[in-house]
């Protein structure tokens, strides 16, 4: 049976079938895409960062730069050691602190502190930074990433939770001194 427009009943049914599958496909694609994008949609809403203690102030003597570690606020049971993150704490004068991310601002390798020459050096591509985190030499385009910090109950707290990268430096508030007694 051929209709006026030349389309038989069966071709129409085939097309109807394709249409139906297309609609079902879209219905399925929405949750699938949302599932795939969950690291950027769901979790980002609330933000990754929260205030974390690096320990008592007595661990960070004035005028020195010390390595500190914290446990990432968002972890799963199977993250193992990867949930532990290191950072460099510089006690400028007991009033002012600087907390630097361990990641080189070039490509994220772990920078090391040399107290004798007051330099941070990166083992990967030779980036170097002064004690205040500013760029000294090498390929980095900027200084070390800094965490926002505050002091509460004699402990040093930083706002952390996301790996700093050149496109996403830690908090925009980094560098500001939020000091609560």
């Amino acid at each position: 049976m051929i209709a006026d427009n030349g389309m038989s009943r069966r071709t129409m049914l085939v097309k109807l079938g394709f249409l139906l599958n297309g609609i079902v496909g879209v219905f399925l694609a929405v949750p699938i895409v949302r599932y795939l994008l969950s690291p950027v949609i769901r979790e980002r809403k609330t933000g990754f960062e929260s205030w974390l203690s690096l320990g008592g102030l007595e661990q960070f003597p004035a005028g020195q730069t010390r390595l500190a570690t914290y446990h990432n606020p968002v972890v799963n049971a199977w993250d193992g050691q990867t949930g532990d993150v290191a950072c460099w704490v510089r006690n400028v004068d007991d009033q002012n602190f600087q907390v630097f991310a361990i990641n080189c601002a070039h490509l994220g390798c772990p920078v090391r502190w040399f107290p004798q020459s007051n330099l941070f050096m990166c083992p990967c591509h030779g980036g170097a930074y002064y004690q205040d985190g500013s760029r000294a030499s090498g390929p980095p385009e900027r200084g070390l990433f800094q965490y926002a910090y505050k002091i509460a109950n004699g402990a040093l707290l930083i706002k952390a939770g996301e790996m700093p990268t050149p496109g996403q430096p830690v908090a925009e508030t980094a560098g500001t001194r939020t000091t609560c007694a």
Partner: protein
Amino acid sequence: MRLIQKVGEWFELRLQLGTPIRDTAEHPVPRETASWFYVFGSAALTVFMLQIVTGILLALIYVPSAGEAWNSLQTLNHGISLGWFIRALHGWGSNFMVAIVLIHMMQVFLFGAYKFPRELTWIVGVLLLLVTLGMAFTGQVLRFDQDAYWGLGIGASIASRVPVIGPWVVNLMLGGPIIAGATLSRFFALHVFVVPGLLIAFVGVHLLMVLKLGINEWPMPGRIVRRATYLQEYHELTHKDGVPFVPNAVWKDILFSAFILLAIAACAVYFGPFGPSGQPDPTIIQTAPRPDFFFLWLYALLSFLPPSSETPILLIGPAIALLVLVALPFVAGEGEKSWKRRPIAVLSVLLIAVALGTFTRLAQHAPWSPVMDAWSSQPIPSEYLQGRTALQRRGALVFQAKQCHNCHSLDDKGGQRGPALDSVALRMTQDQLVRQVIQGGGNMPAYGKNLSPAETTALVAFLDTLHPANQAPARDASRAVALGTGETATRP
């Protein structure tokens, strides 16, 4: 024998594969293509099969969990009978596969095989190169050690530089805000399901086209490819002067594949498996991450690019390279096939090979990285200290204590980030040395705030002794004039 024949017939009646298989095996190929130059494609396929088998074997033990992966690799290396050998086969298989794919690509390019009508075969081949490299990178991540951890950090840092969506790309790549369990799980899914799936699909299409269009004939100088006449010419070549693929050509493929498998096994036995290096613990920062062999050139490139152009080159460079490779068969789809009449093609291959080889070699030494422990592990050669004054020796101590040695070498020991200082006194006067130390510059940090005036004086006094015994150190002539001393002052 009767029984075997009967079973064979039973299957043949149902599968009906006998004729197509026989036709495929005995299809005629140009006589000269039964050559040792035409064995790399089949060798790549053979190594891929080895990778599938050894990969499945490893998956029997490996735990794709950030907390357990490293331990399961230790178990594979030490706890499971011959687990180390399977790991070594898979690791060396990976290196061989990348190498063979690159050689295959080079041969195909030099033999003009990408020209009409094999443009799509070439493009799928480019995709195969990409997924092979994708397998190599994701596989390196599954060897979840320090190199893998910080390598992911490098990947994330590069991805974050994408304008506007960079941070989202990083979160998507890592599966969260940091490198953690979710990161390893998604790279496991990529390495075991997604990329191999693509690889198998592309290999299928690639092979199908090789069979449908026929293997590229041996390029003869002067035999020009023209779209209008090529198919007819190729048909005549294969049907008048051709030989059946099996057995005339295939025996070389089989022998070479066996040789490659043997070479992989030999490397696996002799050199053993790759790593794992230290535990993927981000709080262990005494580490110098290095990528695997086939990404070393990139590691070198990243240290040489000027900071301002690094991001655009990193983001646009790969796109341009891909575009060039894909556009090649459309731009040069006709014409001369023989490398003897294509000097630009030969030079391009040489240039790329020399560049990649040089960068790889450099990355094995990484002269751009400070030697982190040179200041405490590499003493100043004693001949640089003999007969020196107390001030100069004090300067030598400053040189060590302030980690100058990490970036500057003396007697070929120490870092190579900065220039060697064995004869620095010939190049710079005392004043210039003082200025360089205090203000830095030319990729050297300024030490003005980190050195007391006494330390600077001592350091420069030491540096001023660094010149060959028979050559006088550089002097500022005007200084002698100003002080009214020295020979220059008395010169007419």
